[in-house]
């Protein structure tokens, strides 16, 4: 077990930011921490790194208790904090070299590592740039390079894609998967469910400092009663035609708005196939058909009664 958090409680005055949180991260995982703004992701990460004192609970990293003085543990962790932390006075290269230097003192070895990190985030053309001259996306990439250059075993990234253009975002997400393939265990926080779904092997959904659900994205989606949503463009279906669809297995709701039928299923297989067959058999002419699988937003919506994003 790389990370083990047990009964973590963190209060800011009267506000309980983290409420008896339990989770663990296994070696090789990309562990996603998904939650809306203010759900306690950053607080969790900061407690994990002993940057914050917490009120209750235990935190173990690599099987050892994490404290502010656990320098041997810190050596194996790469950190990309939510707020970009780089020196405005140093160039891109100097910044990465500094942060890598906090972990690696050998000069020659560091040089290779820094070059690798620069290639990795695609900042080859900006080595001599100062942070003030970088766009938001490039700055985030620099922040990431500073966190991962020393090739740590555990990498913690707190919303590294906030305010980043789609191109940089994809580059970052692919990079994280690549780091994972090279052997790093990753903790990734975000409030974008698409990102988390795209890269995370296991996801914990947080709300108001509490765990809403944990599991792989399939497991999470299976937790809820809503399954596939199929929308059919069809003009004025007859009541008997609607009835035939409603009678199909797994179908929990059919809405007919005159030119469009929305069919909701409760998980299960072959729903789209069954619907298509029924449409043919009932000789109902239709235009476009599209099918949407449930999202993590549906999961969040069903469990908490509100949207993940506001």
């Amino acid at each position, binding site marked *: 077990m790389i990370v083990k958090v047990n009964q973590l409680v963190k209060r800011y005055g009267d506000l309980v930011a983290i409420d008896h949180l339990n989770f663990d991260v296994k070696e090789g995982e990309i562990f996603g921490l998904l939650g809306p703004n203010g759900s306690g992701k950053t607080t969790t990460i*900061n407690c994990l790194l002993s940057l914050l*004192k917490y009120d209750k609970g235990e935190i173990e990293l690599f099987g050892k208790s994490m404290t502010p003085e656990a320098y041997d543990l810190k050596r194996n962790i790469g950190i990309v*904090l939510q707020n970009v932390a780089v020196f405005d006075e140093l160039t891109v290269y100097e910044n990465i070299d500094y942060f890598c230097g906090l972990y690696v003192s050998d000069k020659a070895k560091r040089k290779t590592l820094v070059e690798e990190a620069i290639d990795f985030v695609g900042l080859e053309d900006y080595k001599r740039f100062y942070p003030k001259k970088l766009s938001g996306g490039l700055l985030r990439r620099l922040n990431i390079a500073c966190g991962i250059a020393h090739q740590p075993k555990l990498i913690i990234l707190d919303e590294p894609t906030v305010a980043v253009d789609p191109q940089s975002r994809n580059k970052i997400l692919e990079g994280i998967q690549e780091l994972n393939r090279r052997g790093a265990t990753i903790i990734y926080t975000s409030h974008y469910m698409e990102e988390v779904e795209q890269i995370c092997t296991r996801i914990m959904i947080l709300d108001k400092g509490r765990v809403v659900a944990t599991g792989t994205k399939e497991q999470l989606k299976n937790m809820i009663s809503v399954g596939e949503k199929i929308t059919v463009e069809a003009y004025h279906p007859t009541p008997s035609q609607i009835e035939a669809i409603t009678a199909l297995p797994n179908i929990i709701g059919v809405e007919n708005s005159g030119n469009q039928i929305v069919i909701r299923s409760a998980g299960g297989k072959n729903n789209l196939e069954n619907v298509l067959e029924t449409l043919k058999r009932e000789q109902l002419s239709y235009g476009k058909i599209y099918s949407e699988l449930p999202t993590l937003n549906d999961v969040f919506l069903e469990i908490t009664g509100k949207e993940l994003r506001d």
Partner: protein
Amino acid sequence: MPVFKVSMKILKKNIPTFLIYMLVFIMVSVIATRIEVLSGGPENFSDTKINVAVFNETETPLTKSFINSLSEVANIVELEDTEESIQDALYFRAVYMIVRIPSDFGQISEKGEMVPLDVMTIPDAPETIQAQNHINQFLRLLSATKLGYPELSEADLASKVAALASNDTVVHMAEQAKQGIEGDLMPFFFNYMAYSYMYIVIMGVATIMLVFGRKDLKMRNTCSPVTGYSNSLQLLASNGVFALIVWILLLLVSFVMDFRNVFKLNTIYFMINSFIFGLSILGLSFLIGNLVKGKQALSAIAGIVTLSACFISGVFVPQAFLGESVLKVASFFPTYWYVKGNLMIGDLTNFSNGHLSELYSILLIEGGFALAFIMIALVVGKRKSLEKIG
């Protein structure tokens, strides 16, 4: 040593700023030193003579020689001996001092004491100090001579005391004149240097501390395996290098300004004194850097601390002119001891251990300040790094 290296880089980036400070301060110091030396020189000496009215009840050889001697440091002026004219003269500062010589001047009273002079001055006027000292000196010499040569006639006594008193004045004047002629700039320059040295070092040290004190960077650095202790030491080391470079530059300026005195032994002591002072300034700057947040606040505080410490410690106004309570407060600043040390070194002609012991204790006190400031800064820094960040 990544922290050390980066802080040196940050300092390097700020070299132009520091050079500007340095140039301005050097210019001010040079000008101030020149003014000090010139105005303190003997050619303006007569300007400082004050007007004194003397009422002499009986003219004797002794009173004559006394008045004569007094005229070396004061202009003897005529004044009508009425209450009203005396009050007016003092009020309008036409005279600073009224001396009434009793008819039995120079006699020993029944109590075995010298008959006192009746001296009236404008209250708290520092201008009268020299004349008062001169009178006291004359009286001391008079009573000593009377004791030593009880058989002398009054006329002989008068001429002997007059000779001794004017001798004393001549020696005193000669010393001043010699200093002025040789242009002994070093003591003055080293005093003024305290101001620029303090300001530049505080600004430089705090520039580094501000960067590393930025919340995001601090959090990020706290996540690294570099211990808090190592972090502080590396910062202290780079700050120390900075203070050292500034010290060397200021020394070079002093050498250029007063190259004739560079090879005097006093120069070595000036260097030692300023070096140890530099250590205490380093400690103070480190402390300020640990406490102050924000560049604006920083330059304000650097200015206030530097100016007030230098003012009450006698950098701009000689310590002799400052009140006792001011000096008492000043003694809580290393600047006070530094200036005191400089004065002492400037007067040194004999370098035996006996003469130096007082200087050594001053140097020790400055070193103590350095140590204390650094310790406090380390403790404050540690407490802050454990503080809740969020």
